[in-house]
């Protein structure tokens, strides 16, 4: 009797158990918003995959690199990774174990919303290392109340932008005294900071490369590139349209200047809008394309990259991880991404709950132009960029008397260095 009872109990427990639970882990560097979004997407995924749960873990970006590379190389990889394309490149080159997502993409019936540019900035070394999930758009923003005070419309051309910047600086729009507010908020301290600013003005003006073309040829002394470069440098030097300490500014300091009401024109990323609608700038800004430099070139909002999901080849639950990666391109996960993080890649999402400015990014009507990401094809590019940054910082610290001569000499120097690096690194 007793044995029968035990057998029945065990049988009942086995029948009642939903099968072995599976947990997918995803390591990202998107902070609290990213965790919230992924948790919501995981809960939605579990509706069609009973017993599967998702564990999103957020790391600060610098820690994310070390932990991810270390875990993949020691056989303790998470199931999925989520980060920016250029960061996944570094993980791919350090581990050689990032799976090719091409088959996963091909398995998704409706992926027509991904453009050629989107897919180009997802590939590295002939493999699709991320499935693009969030497009990173960066527009040009101007304080609305300041424009009203100086009687100017949103600047369309670079000449407009310079004139408006001058009026902001002279007009004391915050009532804090002249010399306390500035035209532009830029950053310059680290190599990526200054080149990022140059990227925005260069691509925003309709050009396709900042320092080198895909073959590795230095382009900075081509007439159009030289003009943008000279104007950006003059913004620091001759024009004095940024705070004098900008040479030491990185992202944090740039944000302090923007949110502290010390500047009139600045970069607006899609991820900034929800926050700036509510706090900091409190909605007092208009956004649009970057200023036009050339009459015959279309200016644009810049696609500064792609955030996406990657699956390590040694992921513990690789098949399920691929399924979840594909799920992130589906409408429910994309809708949550747009609502919580502020960006997505699908164009058929409901935008009724978004602010007017968020809608501009969610359903972009403005021309878009994507970064070229030379590091994706040229292994030596980061070293060249670091050397270029040093030259530019010197020019900001001690503005050259003859800017065209400086640009030409810098171009020659970069060409020589590029040849040396290419010979050394291939």
């Amino acid at each position: 009797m007793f044995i029968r009872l035990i057998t029945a109990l065990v049988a009942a427990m086995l029948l009642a158990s939903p099968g072995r639970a599976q947990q997918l882990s995803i390591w990202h560097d998107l902070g609290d918003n990213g965790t919230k979004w992924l948790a919501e997407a995981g809960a939605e995924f579990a509706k069609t995959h009973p017993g599967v749960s998702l564990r999103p873990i957020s790391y600060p970006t610098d820690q994310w690199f070390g932990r991810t590379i270390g875990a993949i190389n020691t056989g303790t990889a998470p199931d999925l990774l989520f980060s920016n394309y250029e960061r996944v490149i570094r993980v791919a080159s350090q581990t050689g174990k990032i799976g090719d997502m091409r088959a996963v993409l091909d398995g998704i019936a409706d992926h027509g919303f991904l453009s050629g540019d989107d897919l180009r900035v997802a590939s590295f070394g002939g493999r699709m290392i991320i499935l693009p999930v969030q497009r990173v758009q960066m527009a040009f923003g101007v304080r609305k109340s300041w424009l009203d005070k100086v009687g100017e419309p949103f600047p369309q051309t670079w000449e407009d932008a310079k004139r408006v910047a001058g009026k902001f600086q002279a007009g004391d729009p915050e009532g804090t005294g002249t010399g306390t507010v500035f035209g532009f908020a830029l950053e310059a301290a680290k190599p990526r900071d200054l080149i990022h600013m140059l990227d925005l003005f260069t691509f925003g003006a309709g050009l396709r490369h900042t320092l080198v073309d895909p073959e590795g040829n230095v382009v900075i002394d081509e007439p159009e590139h030289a003009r943008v470069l000279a104007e950006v440098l003059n913004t620091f030097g001759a024009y004095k349209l940024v705070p004098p300490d900008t040479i030491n500014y990185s992202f944090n300091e740039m944000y302090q200047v923007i949110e502290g009401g010390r500047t009139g024109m600045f970069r607006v990323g899609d991820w900034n809008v929800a926050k700036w609608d509510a706090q900091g700038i409190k909605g007092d800004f208009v956004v649009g394309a970057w200023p036009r430099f050339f009459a015959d070139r279309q200016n644009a909002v810049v696609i500064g990259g792609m955030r996406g999901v990657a699956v390590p080849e040694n992921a513990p639950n690789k098949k399920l991880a691929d399924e979840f990666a594909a799920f992130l391109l589906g409408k429910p996960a994309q809708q949550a991404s747009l609502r919580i993080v502020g960006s997505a890649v699908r164009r058929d999402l409901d935008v009724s709950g978004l602010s007017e400015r968020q809608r501009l990014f969610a359903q972009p009507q403005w021309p878009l132009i994507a970064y070229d990401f030379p590091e994706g094809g040229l292994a030596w590019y980061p070293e060249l960029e670091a050397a270029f940054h040093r030259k530019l910082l010197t020019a900001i610290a001690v503005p050259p008397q003859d800017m065209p001569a400086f640009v030409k000499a810098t171009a020659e120097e970069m060409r020589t260095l590029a040849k040396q690096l290419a010979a050394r690194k291939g």
Partner: protein
Amino acid sequence: MPGLAIRREGVFYLFALPFAALTILFGLWPILLSIQVSFTASATALQPHPQWVGLANYAAIFADPVFQASLARTLLYTVLAVAANLAFALAYALLLDSALIGWGRTVFKLAVFLPVVTPDVAGYVVWRWLYDQSFGAVNAALKLAGLPGFGGLASPGTAMLALLVAELWHHAGFYVLIFLANLAILDRAQTEASHIDGATTLQRFWYVTLPQLRPAIAVNLVYALIQFLKTFTAVVVMTKGGPADATNFVSFYAYQQFDSAQYGQATAMATVLFAIVLLVALSAYRVTERGRA
């Protein structure tokens, strides 16, 4: 009683063992691993079977003009910062020890020691604001006094000086404390005797007080050398190595290299800096100890 001695030593080692193990695990092991990484190719440095490149990373950094300049800058800054900090701390400690200062002694002690216990990042953020070219208090005060403006952190010509002042504010209190401890145990009879013998104030300081301060000078010198050779936090918070590399010291340059995945070269730089710190600190200690003997 050799048995008792062995047992006593055994107990000592038993108590020391956990701390020795922790030091080896968290102190020495990472240093050894870092040195190991400096002999590998950056692209494979974090892989289970890295590619060994011998001394290639060391050859690369010594051929790098930015590293050469960074090393020279680090040594220059260390010399200036050590000299400024120790001179200031000694003068301040002598002032606190003298009868001149009277009732204000506690206030002055507090004023110099508070920055030591202030979180360094918070302190340096405030200094960055003080130096700010558009709203900083330093230039506002200079302007009020009718003096020319100070380039602060925005100018390559003044950034190192600005950093040095901020670091002096943060660290000098510690050196003052060491000097004060030494001053408290000075043999006052020698000072009085030299006074009776007609020695001037300067002679009394140079021939009587200073030789007795040798222990404090040794401790402060070694500590300051280590401190300023490794200057990092102030650079990260205030200048990020700029402007135009004016404050790009070896520790920060190595960090930058690490940040751009040049792990082999970054750890080679860290190893070179470690060797210099070790060499300089040991030499300074030996020199001051020899003088004492």
